[in-house]
């Protein structure tokens, strides 16, 4: 729990000024609330109406205003922090590289990461501020009672020890364990829900509706059992703390009455002490419950720390080790070995391939054969286990990622358009490109006429909430974006996946014309028949074999 918490706190630290300011306003708000109750109590119980009613008239409206200010101040500070963390995390993930990101996307961890960031607001609003205020309040109460009558100081001291130290210590471990259990059950339910949703055809086909419903019900029940434990634990924590505060109040009454009878304490003073305890009761009673929120924030912190600590799988070479710029853009691959983890089987096992300048190569192979792994190696996303790749005579190990990316324009299999205008989407390829360059790229991708025909042209919004481009059109925007880069090599991973054969052939025809003068590497599980290729390679058993003439001509089918 501690490392996660430390990390979460470190994330809040850069804005500690604003956060502390928000907490100070909250402190003022609590003090005014205390003042209101003390003044009202003194007016009725202590017979000090003349002195305290004017104070009440001052404190009550102030308290309303300060409480409003408190809410605004704490939330404003918090939003600053959350915005910072998002940007920081974005930069961190960018440094870790696409492979780490791919892993996050796979398990829908991105969404969980976002809710983890949001969980940090609980750390501030539900833990740091209330606990801080409760501690300050209890401390002030202790000093106040010490000043009133040291004989009574036992009561607030014991109260503080029980609700702020004893109960949280006793409950914390259990709360953390239950929190972890809830998380596990929720993940198990997620697995079942994904099975139920994605496997719907299989379920209906097998008549497995009742079986799957029973599985969902079972994991729902398991989750509810764990959540029920958390709810009981939470309720118990609240009740124990509430009971402790009540016991403290009664003890204060009993002792105080004796002191008054002994003439050692003024009744008015005793009334002040009583109302101070009453005023702080809720703040104190909430302390043990903060444990649950603390556990959640610590869990979120630990997960974010793990993401932040993701090392770049293939760091750039040190400056002095960097080689001179490549001469030309021929690719030479020698004896390439690759695996995902030391205990995993080899994906590529001694792959050799040479791709001369201006070549047009198709790389074929079954899914899982290692095609995309080869792309990751070519893009310097992962290091090879052995062997080397040379670009223009320079080993990729001696090149920086940025230098390499300037020479190979890559369109990944899962590339998608951003929620932005077509222009903004294109400019990601080359931010300095002028209007004419954008249109040249679109024309080369055979999309120029389509975009000219749109009412908003380049300013058309695509993606969510925008115009729906067909699969083929979206692929062409991606191609135009890659073409805008001055890179001499174009690497396309499954560029026609999801397109029907006619659309796929049209896309390939557009590519044939657009990439003149560049090397083109196509990674695909099957050819459309429209590719103009100089070489065709099949990856099997971790090695590349050259298959010419380019695969069976019927592979893509032709219109019958």
């Amino acid at each position, binding site marked *: 729990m501690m490392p996660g918490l430390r990390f979460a706190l470190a994330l809040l630290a850069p804005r500690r000024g604003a956060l502390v300011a928000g907490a100070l306003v*909250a402190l003022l708000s*609590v003090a005014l609330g205390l003042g209101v*109750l003390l003044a009202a*109590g003194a*007016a*009725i*119980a202590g017979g000090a*109406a003349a002195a305290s009613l004017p104070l*009440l008239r001052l404190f009550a409206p102030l*308290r309303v205003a300060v409480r409003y200010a408190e809410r*605004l101040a704490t939330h*404003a500070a918090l939003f*600053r922090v959350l915005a910072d963390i*998002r*940007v920081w995390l*974005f930069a961190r993930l960018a440094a870790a590289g*696409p492979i780490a*990101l791919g892993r996050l996307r796979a398990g829908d961890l991105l*969404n969980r990461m*976002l809710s983890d960031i949001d969980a940090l607001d609980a750390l501030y*609003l539900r833990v740091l501020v209330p606990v801080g*205020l409760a501690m300050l309040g209890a401390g002030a109460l202790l000093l106040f009672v010490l000043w009133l009558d040291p004989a009574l100081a036992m009561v607030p001291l014991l109260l503080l020890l029980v609700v702020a130290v004893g109960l949280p210590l006793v409950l914390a471990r259990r709360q953390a364990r239950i929190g972890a259990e809830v998380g596990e059950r929720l993940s198990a339910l*997620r697995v079942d829900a994904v*099975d*139920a*949703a*994605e*496997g*719907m*055809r*299989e379920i209906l*086909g097998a008549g497995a*509706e009742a*079986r799957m419903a029973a599985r969902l*019900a079972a994991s*729902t029940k398991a989750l509810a059992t764990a959540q029920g434990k958390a709810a009981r634990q939470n309720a118990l924590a*609240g009740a124990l703390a509430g*009971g402790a505060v009540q016991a403290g*109040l*009664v003890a204060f009454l009993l002792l105080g009455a*004796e002191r008054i009878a002994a003439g050692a304490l003024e*009744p008015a003073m005793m009334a002040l002490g009583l109302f101070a305890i009453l*005023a702080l009761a*809720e703040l104190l009673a*909430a302390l043990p419950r903060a444990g649950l929120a603390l556990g959640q924030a610590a869990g979120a912190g630990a997960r974010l720390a793990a993401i932040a600590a993701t090392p770049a799988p293939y760091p750039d070479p040190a400056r002095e080790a960097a080689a001179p710029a490549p001469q030309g853009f021929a690719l030479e691959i020698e004896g390439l070995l690759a695996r995902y983890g030391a205990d995993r089987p080899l994906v590529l096992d001694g792959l050799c391939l040479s791709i001369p300048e201006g070549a047009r190569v198709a790389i*074929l192979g*079954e*899914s*899982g054969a290692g095609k995309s792994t080869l792309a990751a190696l070519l*893009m310097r996303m992962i290091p090879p286990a052995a062997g080397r790749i040379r670009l223009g005579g320079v080993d990729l190990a001696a090149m920086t990622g940025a230098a390499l990316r300037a020479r190979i324009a*890559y369109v*990944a299999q899962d*590339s998608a358009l*951003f929620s932005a205008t077509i222009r903004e989407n294109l400019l990601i390829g080359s931010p300095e490109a002028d209007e004419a360059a954008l249109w040249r790229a679109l024309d080369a991708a055979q999309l120029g006429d389509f975009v000219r025909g749109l009412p908003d042209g380049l300013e058309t919004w695509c993606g969510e909430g925008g115009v729906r481009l067909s699969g083929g059109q979206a692929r062409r925007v991606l191609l135009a*974006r890659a073409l805008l880069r001055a890179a001499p090599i174009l690497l396309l991973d499954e560029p026609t996946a999801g397109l029907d*054969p006619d659309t796929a052939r049209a896309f390939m025809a557009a590519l044939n014309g657009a990439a003149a003068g560049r090397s083109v590497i196509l990674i695909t599980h*099957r050819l459309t028949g429209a590719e103009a290729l100089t070489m065709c390679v099949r990856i099997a058993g971790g090695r590349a074999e050259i298959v010419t003439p380019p695969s069976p001509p*019927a*592979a893509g089918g032709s219109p*019958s």
Partner: protein
Amino acid sequence: MAATIPQPDAAPDAAPDPVPEPAQNGRAQAFLKARARSARPSILLAVGFALAAGLGAIAQAYLLAGLIDQALAGAALWAEERAALLALGVVVLVRLECGILAEIAGFAAGARLKADTRALVFERLLAAGPARAAEQEAGGAAIALTDRIEALEGFAARWLPAATLAAVLPLAMLVAAALHSGPVAALLAGFLVLAPLGLALSGIGAARASRRQFRMLERLGGRFLDRLRGLGTLIHYGQAEAEAARLGTAAHEFRLRTMAVLRLAFLSSAVLELCAMGAIAGVAFMVAPSVADGSLPRATGLFLLLLAVEFFQPLRAFALTYHDRASAAGAAEALAALVDAAPPADPAATLPVPDAGRIAIAFEDVHLAYEGGARPALSGLTLALAPGEAVAVTGPSGAGKSTLLDLLMGFRRPDRGRVLANGVPVERIAPERLRALSAWVGQRTHLFHGSLRENIRFARPDASDAEVDRAAAAAQVTAFLPALPQGLDTLLGERGFGLSGGQAQRVAIARAFLKDAPLLLLDEPTAHLDAETEAAVMQALRALAAGRTVLMASHSEAASAALGRRVRIEGGRIRADDGGGP
């Protein structure tokens, strides 16, 4: 006393989030109400216990006021007021216990609501069928079954009980106050009327503001996720840093706009705070002179003050649950749409299929359009398959190939024309009986979380190990078993081992072998395979096809050629039919 200074809040309370005012959405409200019905006993229990705890608070205030009065007078409490002390102890214990029980009952209500809704949503998802589910956002169904349903909890667990308490408890306190002082009761009643009025007024303003800002906020918030998803592209094109800077600017804007909304939204909690402070101060001003001149006993004055402090607690607790209602309403809106999308079961679908061992299929002048008629898929298609005949349907995307298969599985109904299985219209056959006639292999096979053996047995849970082994052998699953760490017992799916596309297809074929249905429906089963793997899969499929009626949709020439009769559809009707000749 539990309630004095509200802690610096917890969840941003009263209308914190820039969500559209949920009350605007009648459908979501109706859905929530209907769903909460089965949880009603638990909700009533929660309300009952919370009410008991609330009444306990009044008793506690009364006893405490008397004891404080005596203590201030220097009485020997333990000797003289033992009965009151014991009573206070009992009240506090009962009250805390009731508080615990109320929370647990509330949780049970939420759990019940979630469990029932999850079962219902899954049932309706299945009734709507995968064809309709595919029209929804990607992953929407899984999110509906998890996060959306989890978001409903607070509605039954917290919001409903808190709403009832906020309406009832202040009245009980008013009665308690009226027994001691008419004017004080009148004052409290005045603030009680003022509070909801103020809440409503500022709430309306906040809702209008948040609706106005909502779209903008949504776009800015969605941008982060969008750019995160596409971070790979940004890295490859050297744009990650620039985009991080742009995101920072957007986040800054987002914050300014959110705060603009919150400034209004927090007004409603300020109104509540104003009433609470007004009540305390008002009672103090009213009571203090009477206590001072002896016209009102000090104990009574203290009781009235403690009552005033407690008076707005139920309303405050209610305001804190706004968050619960808002997120539940948002989830309910999406869930209601999902539940309503499923067509009701057809009671007339009861006909048996004669001679169900061999199936003849006939499509007669079938018309079918999607999106309420806007996108025609089939327009007058006629096609007949004799028992045991294998037909490959080719044609461009959107020509209606998959629609044919959906019709035969009961996932779609023709707008016009008939689809017959052994002469019986398929919509007159009970869906489960219709689907028992066929085995289906699609483009990508879903592998469930479980072992490979369980995944094959999924098609027929009562199959013996030997039968599963035979199906695995027939589908050539055994060929890749040596590559798996634990053979047939290797865990697959979400957290298991991944199979390659060709291997997963062979699992689907093994399932079909095990199901042993007379009709085989194949939807581009080799679309994602390379030529060599395709040949292997087609070989297994040909073995499976023997003796069955087969309808295969495919782009692939090689796959179609392997089957037999070839039919091409375009524009929703048959354009070419080689009649099974070479």
